[in-house]
């Protein structure tokens, strides 16, 4: 029975990846770009969900990790002429390093204090990106030349390649996350979310597991940031603003915290809600805001969280 449930879950997630693969051949050009962007940002949200949805830690500082990824990639390409493939790893490594440092300090706090400390770290990161304007070009940012955004024979600025690169990042992230949440480590993360003291009584060190969750989450954010820079060619301080800490929280809440596919659903929903409403009103953000309030009232566990609660209890 349990094996069947696991297989069904795996089949569903592979099916979603296959569907996204096929969409590339069906979608009009305009939506190509949007879905590629959604896939990269949904990868960011996948990682955020590991920390928030599965471990129960609400971070308001994930823009710092996304920023570490995008600057860790962009700066080494622009300043040192690193090739895109090496720069991608540099971005991920930067985010892992930053999340380790932030984790060691911020995880000494809990609840609201954790939110404030992570927010302050992200603000410090944002101010740092402005302070070192000479390198980062601050708010204005800088463009990564098209000729440098190449890995092997693949030109990442070309729409089809860009879509597949975004899908590859998302698929890897999705499968890593699925494996993590179904593993014994994933169970311990949920147990910490449910009752930290109880997990300690059972012999687990919550600090270590929370640090692991934060670093993995930071690595996802860094990979998304690095890939975003490579695929869309722009690096700027806007990616370290508080907006980029709030976005993944919103996407995860909308899609369903503690569900593997929820971040994709939430990111897609939000992007297309903004896109559709901006087509017929200048007050699109107001419409989006009201829609979000209504949605959260009707689906407090998010879209997939509600589906799991009412229809598919086996959904991971």
């Amino acid at each position, binding site marked *: 029975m349990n094996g069947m449930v696991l297989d069904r879950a795996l089949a569903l997630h592979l099916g979603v990846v296959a569907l996204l693969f096929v969409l590339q051949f069906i979608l009009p050009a305009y939506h190509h770009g949007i879905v590629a962007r959604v896939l990269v940002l949904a990868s960011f949200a996948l990682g955020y969900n590991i920390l928030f949805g599965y471990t129960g830690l609400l971070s308001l500082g994930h823009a710092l990790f996304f920023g570490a990824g995008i600057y860790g990639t962009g700066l080494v390409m622009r300043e040192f002429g690193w090739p895109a493939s090496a720069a991608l790893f540099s971005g991920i490594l930067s985010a892992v390093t930053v999340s380790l440092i932030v984790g060691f300090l911020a995880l000494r706090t809990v609840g609201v204090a954790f939110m404030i400390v992570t927010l302050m770290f992200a603000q410090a990161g944002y101010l740092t990106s402005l302070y070192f304007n000479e390198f980062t070009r601050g708010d204005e940012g800088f463009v990564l030349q098209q000729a440098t955004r190449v890995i092997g024979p693949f030109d990442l600025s070309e729409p089809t390649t860009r879509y597949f690169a975004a899908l590859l990042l998302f698929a890897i992230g999705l499968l890593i996350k699925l494996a993590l949440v179904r593993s014994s480590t994933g169970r311990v993360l949920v147990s910490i979310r449910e009752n930290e003291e109880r997990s300690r009584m*059972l012999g*687990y060190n919550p600090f270590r597991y929370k640090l692991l969750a934060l670093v993995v989450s930071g690595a996802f954010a860094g990979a998304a940031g690095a890939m975003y820079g490579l695929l869309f060619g722009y690096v700027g301080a806007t990616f370290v603003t508080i907006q980029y800490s709030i976005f993944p929280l919103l996407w995860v809440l909308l899609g369903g915290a503690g569900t593997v596919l929820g971040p994709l659903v939430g990111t897609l929903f939000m992007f297309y809600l903004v896109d559709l409403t901006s087509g017929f009103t200048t007050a699109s953000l107001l419409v989006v805001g009201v829609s979000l309030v209504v949605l959260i009232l009707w689906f407090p566990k998010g879209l997939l969280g509600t589906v799991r609660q009412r229809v598919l209890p086996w959904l991971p």
Partner: protein
Amino acid sequence: MLDVREIDCFYGDVQVLRGLSLHVQPGEILCLLGRNGAGKTTTLKAIMGLVRVRAGTISLDGRALSDMTAPEVPRLGLGYVPQGRRLFAELTVAENLEIGLMTRGHGAETRDRTLGLFPVLRERLNQRAGTLSGGEQQMLAMARALCLDPSVLLLDEPTEGLMPSMIGRIRDVVVSLREAGVATILVEQRVDAVLSIADRVCFIESGRSRETLAAEAVRDRPDLLQRYVGVGAV
């Protein structure tokens, strides 16, 4: 086995335990009796490393527990079922048990043996723990602690709020654990239930262990029950 010697514990500046001592041997059921606020739950928490011991020592088979962190203590073979069950409500029964099994690296054999004590859980393995009845949740809390294959089990009011049939089932399990050589420290308000299964009773008052007697001797001492627990003869 487990030896607690003259421990002092505080919540902030308030001293809760004052030179409390007790010990328990393999296959023995020791019951802690006392009024609310006497320090029974704090004693269990101190043993598990959840409350810092400022003075005195706690040792298991000669190994000092009082210097260890809370996550290290269960790994030595101490299982704790706190008051109020505290399950991981969103995890299934099977996943709750797995969390217990992983602590000391136990596998299917320990799980099957535990499920043998609580057959009803076997039928609920894929059900979320939060949806179980109160009695089933208590069984799961005990089963999860038993998945550590403990040599000492600490139970804090395991029958609180349960119907009589469930209380009987839990009582049977505690007795069978005694036969398997597991030492049990039991905090319980139901004096009649305690005296029917305990080997010894330790009366706690104002954070001090006042008297420790054989359970059968307590039946002949209604004055002690009246003094330390506030109930008459049972």
